[in-house]
């Protein structure tokens, strides 16, 4: 059975008819919830379904020092109940987080110059920021840690936004799909379409939640408490950095 209701049966015993009925509650099946995928670091040039993740080297002012890609996929196996009181009802037999051998994934890229402690860019981050005067630069170590945290950390990150959104039962594709049932008056194909449409809307909701900027800014030089850690020392048009004083 796929939906709750009241089943009834007419029994005739020794010529005397009895109308019997019993309410039945159908509980949600377990094991359908999608688990958030782990964040996976990728190299520059990663192809995220047509969008290439890359960061200029050396980084330039206005360009991001970290990027991410959320690839959400699902496949459902929709079926029809063949007999019993729910005959003709449609339901989702199974749902998996992949489509055509492509799985859901969360990928992030950190500027190669920021990861290279010997790069000119990394060494130019002086670590002499003065919060009183709001002058000076963040340190390379802080900038790198904050970039990773902003994209893939367990707090104040796009990745954490994704995890929270996809773990929300009203968004979780597996949980949502498990509950869907189709009318006996509609075909299996239409039920499949309806479920896909509903899940695509949840995909959009998870994407929108993931896009929310941690600490309210796309600038990454904030720590996990959203405290500004100092300016980034970018090279000028001639490739020169401000000196550390």
């Amino acid at each position: 059975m796929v939906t709750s209701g009241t089943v009834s049966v007419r029994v005739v015993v020794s010529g005397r008819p009895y109308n019997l009925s019993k309410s039945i509650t159908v509980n949600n099946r377990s094991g359908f919830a999608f688990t958030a995928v782990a964040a996976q670091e990728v190299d520059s040039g990663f192809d995220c379904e047509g969008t290439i993740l890359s960061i200029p080297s050396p980084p330039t002012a206005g360009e991001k020092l970290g990027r991410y890609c959320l690839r959400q996929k699902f496949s459902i196996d929709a079926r029809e109940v063949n007999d019993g009181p729910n005959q003709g009802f449609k339901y989702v037999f199974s749902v998996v987080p992949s489509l055509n051998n492509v799985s859901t994934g969360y990928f992030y890229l950190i500027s190669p110059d920021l990861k290279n402690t010997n790069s000119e860019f990394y060494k130019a981050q002086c670590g002499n920021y003065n919060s009183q005067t709001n002058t000076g630069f963040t340190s390379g170590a802080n900038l790198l840690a904050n970039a990773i945290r902003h994209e893939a950390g367990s707090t104040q990150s796009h990745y954490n936004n994704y995890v929270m959104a996809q773990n929300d039962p009203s968004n979780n594709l597996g949980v949502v799909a498990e509950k869907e049932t189709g009318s006996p008056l509609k075909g299996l194909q239409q039920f499949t379409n309806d479920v896909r449409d509903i899940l695509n809307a949840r995909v959009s909701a998870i994407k929108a939640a993931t896009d929310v900027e941690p600490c309210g800014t796309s600038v990454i030089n904030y720590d996990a408490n959203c405290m500004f850690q100092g300016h980034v020392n970018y090279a000028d048009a001639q490739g020169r950095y401000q000196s550390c004083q």
Partner: protein
Amino acid sequence: MKTGLTTIFCLCLMVGPTVQRQEDDFLDLTKIKPPKQRRTSIIAGGGMASTDGSPSPKPRLKVTLLSLDKRSYQLGDKFIYEVMLENITESVFVIPWTSDYYSVKPYEGSDPPGYVSASLRLVIKDEVSGEASAAGEGVYGSELVPGSLKRLRPGQKVRIRALGQWWFGSEEATKRIMMKLPQAYDVQARFSFLDVGGKPWYEPALSANSLSVELRKRQQ
């Protein structure tokens, strides 16, 4: 040469099943007979990839909900409605134009060339999921089935008449809605692409206008 032409003619007969004939810019999905072919299981999916807040591709169509056959329904009732779709891009935009899924996609597991599918549904506001959608209709098309794709010129408008049912899918959503009945709802139409032939995913197009309907509990 004659053999070649005969072969082409036969191939056309094989791959080009007759799609319901329609007035050019009008598709009536309410007169389609149920398919003879049935499948016991359909596997299909969806999703999308997005990077750092990249905006979703905007809808390419403007949807207008033109009419509903009634203004008061019981939960579970079927209804007939009509929508207008308008190509709001500056280039030709292709939409699926038949409900004959089994002709367009005769084999599960492989998409025919240029395969496009979309779902047309009516939606109401829902406090949990944002919106609850009534059971809708699917439209399909591929390059192999003549007439199954509609190429809309910029600004071109087409109408679709479709059959829906006030059926909200999950028991939870149905219970939430049922608790409020009778209730007036502002109903909007939504046209969502499901398969786009390898092209970027489009954001579903939701009608800017709405029509008010009353939903009531089903009388036993």
